[in-house]
């Protein structure tokens, strides 16, 4: 379980996160939703240790991040897989080298073992036969798959995804969402996904945290999101006419 307690983060004068608390459980896709600029990425980067919060505590299965020494932090990071918004693939390396990179740095395996593992994860994300291509030669959806493959190659306990389907067409977006959910379930990872896409929230959000003005404005499941009266989240969902209709019919049915 990842436990976040009273997280505060500012950049100079701008107070971005104003006391966020929550817990994220194993085998579940947890979602952070909110408008662009609401602090989702900042929140995720605090979890990753890329930003240091001024206040608050983050613990990974009982290990409080701020109390770990450098070696323990490094060990923890090898247990984390991260899918960045743009993929963040190393563009000077091939697909195979990209995915093999964490193994080369941290696993003491032979070239053959590493290659087997690379092919295994590439297969898992449905991207065989792309080993020797460079990221620039791949479509957006394929790049995301490679990034997922790289994120899970070390068998992480924790998987973080920043807007995994931004910039993808709806069909590919759904495929990527489902892939994230499948591997979360399969490897019983703790997965935290940032999104502002209501479609993926409904599809895979087993636990949802809604950020607004630096605070947690709502928390619940994707079922509860339809029936809640919380004005902030209703406004967020209602910004799409489609979901407005879906919600209305859902409410009607459940009466």
């Amino acid at each position: 379980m990842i436990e976040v307690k009273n997280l505060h983060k500012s950049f100079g004068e701008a107070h971005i996160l104003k006391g966020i608390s929550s817990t994220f459980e194993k085998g579940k896709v947890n979602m952070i939703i909110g408008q662009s600029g609401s602090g989702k990425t900042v929140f995720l980067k605090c979890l990753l240790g890329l930003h240091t919060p001024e206040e608050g505590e983050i613990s990974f299965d009982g290990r409080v991040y701020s109390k770990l020494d450098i070696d323990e932090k490094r060990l923890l990071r090898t247990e984390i897989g991260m899918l960045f918004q743009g993929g963040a693939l190393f563009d000077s390396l091939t697909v195979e080298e990209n995915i093999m990179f964490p193994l080369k740095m941290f696993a003491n395996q032979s070239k053959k073992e590493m290659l087997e593992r690379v092919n295994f994860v590439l297969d898992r994300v449905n991207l065989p036969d792309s080993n020797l291509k460079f990221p620039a030669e791949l479509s957006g959806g394929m790049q995301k798959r490679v990034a997922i493959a790289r994120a899970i190659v070390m068998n992480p306990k924790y998987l973080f995804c920043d807007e995994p389907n931004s910039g993808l067409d709806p069909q590919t977006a759904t495929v990527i969402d489902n892939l994230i959910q499948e591997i979360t379930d399969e490897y019983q990872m703790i997965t935290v996904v940032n999104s502002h896409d209501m479609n993926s929230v409904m599809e895979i959000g087993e636990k949802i945290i809604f950020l607004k003005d630096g605070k947690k404005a709502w928390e619940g499941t994707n079922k509860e999101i339809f029936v809640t009266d919380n004005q902030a989240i209703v406004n967020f969902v209602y910004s799409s006419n489609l979901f407005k209709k879906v919600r209305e019919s859902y409410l009607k049915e459940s009466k």
Partner: protein
Amino acid sequence: MNYIEHIGKYFMMLRQVFKRPQKWKVFRETFFREVEDLGLKSLGIIMFISFFIGGVVAIQTALNVDSPFIPKYLIGFATKRSMILEFGPTFTSIILAGKVGSYIASSMGTMRVTEQIDALEVMGINSLSYLVLPKVLAALIFYPLLVLIAMFLGIYGGWAAGILTDLFYSVDYIDGVQLDFNPYFIKYAIIKTIVFAFVIATIPAYHGYYVKGGSLEVGRASTQAVVWTSVVIILLNYFLTQMLLG
């Protein structure tokens, strides 16, 4: 940020850069890639420029010493001196500051804005050491070699110009080149080059690594990197010359 803060941050960066590589095998691979990217790929332009600069220096000297009282071997002598003392180390370094400096700043800046540097950090990798140390080492080892080649080609270019223009005789030129050979001057040039190599690898890395924003800022950082690298080289050139030859 003011200049003092930038200088402070630059030295803080260097402390991270000179950490032990986490995996020697990976370090070796990146080192050889940097030798290619920062060194071998600049070989052609450096050879081309130094050959012609040598030619021009020889022609200009020949035209300026058109007096019967000045011996003809002076042309070869002057060309050799200026190639070894200035054109070899400083001119080459300024060219590299432009070519390699913009490459380092823009490639690292792109890695920053596309979150590739974050990706390294998340994996538990010291991104500064991983990215910059191989560059520094490649430059320190390869650039002195490049400068020696530039000196040689410059002197050769001077000779070729004489042959082509009939402004002076081959024997006179060669006499001049062989006259009063001082190995300390080569040492002086190599010391300067090593200092410049360090500057060429690290100042653009600083500008690229700390980029904030998008591709526009990457472009700006790249320009800034070239300007500052050149300025620092020129200033250091002055002080080193005073220290080593003064």
